[in-house]
């Protein structure tokens, strides 16, 4: 059996979060009534001229700086010619020979903790196309050009990924990055962040790449992974049975979980790029670049490194907590409230109880029903031994559903931990007195009955006995003290 190596490169289209379109003053808001945001420029009426949106340029430069790329001092817009009903001009304004963002790279972290650098070939500015709708229309397609002219940053990777998992890790990292930079809302359901995957296989050890297929229409991390798995299996099967892969565009059908050839695109792949005479070269000065650099936020890798070093968190924890700016800010606010020495406790609660409550209720971090200060207040009560970690989970649930702070719930429900040695001792005495047989067995060597006594005391105190104190007292008493 042959051993195949998978080679993947991704083209990611990120819609830039501008208010107006890249070449017109029409709005870019999602979900508006059909064609209500399509201006004469977007509709390609004769005689109109595109004028470039400064904010789209600024966002592209911001991205370029974040991946350590060269920003082109001079870049050119080109026409990519093809016919499709959702492209009224008959060409898409894009960049071809001289894109605004040159070569850069990002690091991804794989499941086994290994870091890998993925090269980014280029990123260029272009306009999105409109949308074709088919449902409820007999023998016709409906065209909505609201999306036509929405600014896109197309981010082209090197063929550096060797598995579907690596491709997904890369895509997630870019998704995190564009949201950190606030240049894209990252909403994949609405198509703000989409992906085409170039997939090929080659016998392991061979340098020359195999023939690739380009898979379109990947709008979720899961679909990227599944489509690549399907496509790799298809190509390997084809090659092992003596066939060959043809270079083509394939569409991923998530319902059938398969890729299939888009025959209509085969001949159309002759785009006849040429410089768009309607647009002059884009000049980007050093001063402008430096002014954008000054607006760069702390980047995901920097934040993760700071969390790991400053709060003594594992690389995994630091990575999870820096996955979005909002989550990072929430975590830091909890640490502020509970104190830096307890950062690990804060990390556990943010990644544990808080994340599962958010997941359960399908909420985003900004909609969390317990704010970071309140969560910090709860953790403080664990730290000062007012309640145990176990009781704290119940308090958290009550805070989540009732919106009160921890102290109010602890007081109202009488959950304060029993730390009075005398009170705990009294309960232990009563439990021992009530269970003479277990006592005798324990003293005869059945050590595991220790847990039984702990359970009985916790039951009698409704879980409120301080665990450390209980442990110590019980051991002494069972020992015959």
């Amino acid at each position: 059996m042959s051993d195949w190596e998978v080679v993947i490169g991704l083209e990611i289209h990120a819609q830039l979060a501008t208010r107006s379109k890249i070449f017109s003053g029409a709005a870019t808001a999602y979900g508006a009534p059909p064609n209500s945001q399509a201006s004469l420029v977007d509709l390609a009426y004769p005689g109109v001229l595109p004028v470039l949106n400064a904010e789209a340029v600024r966002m592209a430069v911001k991205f370029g700086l974040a991946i350590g790329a060269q920003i082109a001092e001079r870049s050119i817009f080109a026409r990519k010619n093809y016919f499709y009903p959702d492209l009224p001009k008959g060409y898409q304004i894009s960049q071809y020979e001289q894109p605004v963002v040159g070569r850069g790279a990002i690091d991804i972290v794989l499941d086994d903790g290994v870091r890998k650098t993925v090269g980014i070939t280029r990123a260029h500015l272009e306009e999105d196309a409109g949308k074709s709708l088919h449902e409820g229309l007999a023998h016709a397609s409906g065209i909505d050009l609201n999306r036509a002219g929405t600014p896109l940053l197309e981010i082209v990777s090197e063929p550096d990924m060797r598995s579907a998992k690596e491709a997904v890790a890369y895509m997630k990292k870019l998704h995190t990055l564009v949201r950190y930079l606030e240049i894209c809302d990252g909403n994949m359901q609405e198509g703000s962040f989409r992906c085409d995957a170039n997939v090929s296989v080659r016998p392991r050890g061979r340098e020359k790449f195999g023939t690739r297929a380009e898979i379109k229409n990947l709008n979720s991390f899961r679909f990227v992974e599944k489509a690549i798995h399907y496509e790799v299996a298809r190509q390997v099967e084809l090659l092992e049975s003596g066939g060959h892969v043809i270079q083509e565009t394939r569409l991923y059908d998530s319902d059938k979980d398969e890729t299939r050839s888009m025959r209509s695109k085969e001949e159309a792949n002759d785009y006849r790029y040429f410089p768009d005479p309607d647009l002059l070269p884009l000049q980007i000065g050093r001063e402008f670049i430096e002014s954008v650099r000054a607006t760069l936020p702390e980047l995901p890798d920097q934040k993760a490194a700071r969390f790991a070093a400053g709060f003594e968190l594992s690389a995994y924890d630091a990575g999870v907590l820096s996955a979005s700016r909002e989550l990072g800010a929430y975590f830091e606010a909890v640490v502020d409230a509970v104190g830096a020495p307890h950062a690990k406790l804060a990390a556990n609660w943010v990644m544990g109880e808080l994340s599962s409550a958010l997941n359960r209720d399908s909420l985003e971090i900004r909609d969390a029903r317990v704010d970071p200060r309140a969560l910090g207040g709860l953790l403080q009560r664990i730290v000062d031994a007012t309640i145990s970690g176990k009781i704290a989970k119940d308090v958290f649930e009550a805070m989540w559903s009732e919106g009160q702070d921890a102290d109010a719930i602890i007081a109202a429900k009488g959950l304060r931990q029993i730390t009075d040695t005398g009170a705990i001792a009294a309960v232990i005495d009563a439990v021992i007195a009530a269970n003479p047989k277990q006592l005798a067995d324990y003293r005869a060597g059945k050590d595991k009955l220790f847990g039984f006594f702990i359970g009985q005391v916790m039951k009698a105190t409704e879980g409120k006995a301080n665990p450390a104190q209980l442990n110590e007292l019980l051991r002494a008493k069972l020992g015959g003290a």
Partner: protein
Amino acid sequence: MSLSRQDVEKIAHLARLLISEQQMPVYVTSLSAILAFVDQLAKVDTAGVAPMAHPLAGQTQRLRTDEVTETDQHDKYQANASAVQGGLYLVPRVIE
């Protein structure tokens, strides 16, 4: 430069133009003649001259501020469309 019949057929297809059998030789000849005319430019020595992306030498693209300046006028813009429904332009069915 001279175009073959296949070249013209391909260009016609890419441009979505239907060229009749009778017209084809005319296009092959006349398009080849246009290219030959333009080919005279290739005789100019351009060694050491940086390629231009635009005839307006030295000028650069002006930028606009990111403001919404357009209002919804789709009813006017769609007045000359051959078919619309619910705000959508209707075209012959296209589906992948």
